[in-house]
């Protein structure tokens, strides 16, 4: 390994993984992966969504155990690293979603559950002592706020600092930052990168996971690239640059797999058109997007780039903060999802169990729900009409269940997703928005869902598919729109499709010309 910093290379690794393999039913999440982290080293960990980063994190946190392979922390080999084992050996996590109590102050958060107590039976918190303990930690992370500030009053970067201070308070020797900057504005990001440098100076190791490659360039001593659960390559300090990382992330060119659409299809007229639409999450970033009849428009982008937020606006869940929507050339006003449904605009949401279906209702009840008045006589629900509709969709989609009266909560993920699809297919869609339609679904059902989307497009429906699965986006779409920080950073036509182009647009750089 090419260490530029010889002082680091000389030390023994704090953490090393050897030949780690982890499989889930149907998926190999990590395959023969090895890495090591030395004291005071900042490692940049990059890879596409689904490359195995989360699995790696879960293993390091002791949340799951690998099938095979060894983990050595501080010279001690752990066969099954537990959560306590991980914490006890000084590994601390700062997650993308912060785990802070925003109704408590900074000091209370840092020492939550470990508060210094005053003598006596009342177990009162010794506030003076607590403040004394917190002060040096805050100083080390360069905090510009006091220990008794309410967490709710802090900016996101400041909250990250609290998390890092918390990690320091348990004498962490390795701090793992999982996408800490994905929701931070630029100025805040700089502060966080400074904190990472300060940690390094104290001899603490850092694993920094980020999609923002230029940040990795700035702080990492070494970059580890994951691809398809395997180590795609390691870059030493001198070799770290944007292009190298992208090249390793993509690796071999995609096999020309699943040519879902025939070439030379004439694009249809624009069905759904968004003009200068602004979502509540990115209020200053207008989005322009046209979805045409008969096409599958893939919407790619990194997690947090604003794709789901856009879908929520197009489906009427959130109001747009400006701009206009048009359906088939006519202005479209959406005050609620009910308005969108009435116009034939349907959404298969990202979170199936929370928003896609009602787990306590049966398949038939879920399928009829959006169109219940059509299954009723004089405002009374006709169970037989519901069953007829549901049976049709069950057969059509191949939903595997004992009967249409089965509770959807008992079905597998793939079958639940088919129920969500079934409820919209029963209603004659004009625009179908699918948000991560194949996430958490087995390979067989995936292929069926691809076939279904294509059939919809062939029938003249405008299909908008949000997906973080690169192969899926490239394999299924007719055109690909890519979002970056709330805006469409580019639209790729078929002849420009490549993982590299999608990734370049996703990190806010221009795509290569064909």
């Amino acid at each position: 390994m090419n260490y530029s910093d010889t002082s680091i290379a000389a030390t023994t690794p704090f953490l090393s993984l050897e030949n780690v393999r982890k499989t889930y039913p149907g998926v190999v999440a990590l395959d023969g992966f090895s890495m090591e982290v030395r004291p005071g080293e900042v490692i940049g960990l990059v890879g596409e969504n689904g490359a195995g980063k989360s699995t790696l994190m879960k293993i390091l946190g002791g949340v799951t155990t690998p099938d095979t392979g060894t983990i050595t922390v501080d010279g001690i080999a752990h066969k099954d690293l537990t959560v306590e084992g991980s914490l006890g050996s000084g590994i601390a996590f700062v997650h993308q979603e912060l785990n802070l109590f925003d109704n408590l102050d900074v000091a209370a958060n840092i020492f939550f559950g470990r508060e210094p107590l005053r003598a006596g039976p009342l177990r009162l918190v010794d506030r003076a002592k607590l403040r004394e303990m917190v002060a040096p930690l805050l100083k080390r992370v360069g905090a510009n706020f006091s220990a008794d500030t309410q967490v709710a009053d802090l900016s996101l970067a400041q909250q990250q600092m609290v998390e890092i201070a918390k990690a320091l308070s348990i004498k962490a020797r390795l701090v793992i930052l999982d996408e800490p900057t994905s929701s931070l504005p630029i100025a805040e990001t700089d502060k966080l990168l400074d904190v990472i440098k300060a940690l390094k100076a104290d001899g603490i190791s850092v694993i920094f996971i980020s999609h923002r490659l230029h940040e990795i360039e700035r702080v990492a001593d070494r970059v580890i690239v994951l691809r398809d659960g395997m180590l795609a390559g390691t870059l030493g300090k001198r070799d770290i640059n944007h292009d190298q990382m992208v090249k390793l992330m993509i690796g071999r060119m995609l096999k020309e797999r699943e040519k879902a659409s025939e070439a030379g299809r004439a694009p249809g007229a624009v069905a759904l058109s968004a003009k200068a639409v602004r979502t509540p999450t990115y209020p200053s970033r207008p989005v322009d997007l046209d979805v045409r009849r008969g096409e599958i428009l893939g919407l790619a982008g990194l997690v947090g780039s604003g794709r789901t937020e856009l879908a929520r606006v197009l489906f009427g869940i959130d109001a747009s903060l400006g701009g206009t929507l048009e359906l088939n050339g006519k202005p479209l006003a959406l005050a609620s999802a009910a308005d969108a449904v009435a116009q034939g605009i349907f959404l298969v949401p990202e979170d199936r169990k929370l928003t896609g279906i009602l787990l306590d209702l049966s398949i038939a009840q879920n399928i009829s729900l959006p169109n219940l008045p059509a299954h009723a006589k004089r405002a009374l629900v006709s169970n037989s009409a519901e069953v007829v509709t549901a049976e049709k969709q069950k057969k059509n989609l191949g939903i595997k269940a004992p009967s249409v009266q089965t509770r959807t909560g008992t079905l597998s993920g793939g079958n639940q997703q088919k129920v969500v699809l079934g409820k919209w297919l029963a209603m004659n869609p004009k625009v179908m928005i699918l948000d991560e339609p194949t996430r958490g679904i087995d390979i067989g059902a995936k292929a069926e869902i691809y076939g279904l989307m294509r059939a919809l497009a062939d029938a003249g429906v405008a299909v908008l598919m949000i997906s973080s699965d690169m192969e899926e986006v490239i394999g299924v779409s007719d055109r690909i729109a890519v979002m970056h920080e709330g805006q469409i950073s580019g639209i790729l036509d078929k002849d420009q499709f490549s993982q590299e182009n999608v990734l370049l647009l996703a990190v806010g750089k221009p795509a290569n010309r064909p």
Partner: protein
Amino acid sequence: MTKKDLGLLILILVVGAIVAIINPRFLLPINLANTSNLIGLFGILSIGQAFVIITGGIELSVGSVVALLGTLFIDFIAVRGVGWPIAFALILVLGAIIGLAHGWLITRLKLQPFVVTLCGLLIYRGVARFYTADGTAGFAFGQNFPTLEFLTAGRSYGVPNSFFALVVIAIVMWVVLHRSVFGRYLYAIGKNEEAAKYSGIRTGRVVMAAYVICGVLTALSAIYFAMYTRSISPASHGQFYELYAIAAAVLGGFSLRGGEGSLIGVILGTVLLQELQNLVNLLGIPSSLNFAVMGGVILIGVLVDQQWGVFRARRRMVDAARKGAVGAAAE
């Protein structure tokens, strides 16, 4: 009828049998008629509450609404000389407006149901007391409204007409809750409001409608209560009635999280509560213990129901594990 409803019915019959054995006066026609009158009055109130609870909400102001609207009703017909059918309609409209206001605050301004209706509880009680200057609203000597009195406080074939009113309302509301499109929406929203919204249901309107239904049924029961007591002192009339209604729904199998419960359940819950009141009177238990007895029984009932659920879930898991083990061995 669900298993839960059946269990409740059996409990009602067992308690009834025990009370009847200890004190045979329980079965006297006059006692049964009185009890069924109270079941009618509280039943109408509780059905309204049930429609709100099914959405995952709560309506705490019903006791005060009973006081305010009852006072207004008696004032309208006894003092202001408004024809009783007009006054009757007016009170129902007022009930609907109160429900609409609560529903609007909850769905549009996103206030918590508990807070909105707690404020309602305080406001309406205060307004009622102010309206009568803390006096008593009642009829003058010899003032009679034969038709109204027959419909509200009268009897047919020895059965109080208020009980018949409950039966009619219960049947109508059973159809609404268990057979109509609106009823399905209520359950869907109670189970998972987000998913219902993502299915294109106008959840705000549906929830608002539930509060309107509660308001109208509360107004109706307010008239019945007013005609039953015939004089109202707004400082105490209807006090704690919201808790009777909530207790009836909870006893009847409603979950305060929403999405669970049946109309038969809330009626049976009302019956059990009134039976317990009657029991306290007939068995010579000091009436000051009234609330304590009710609270104890509700607590035990809910506890048994919950523990039974835990027990069944555990047994199902053991069964599944056993089946799984057999399946694995067979492979």
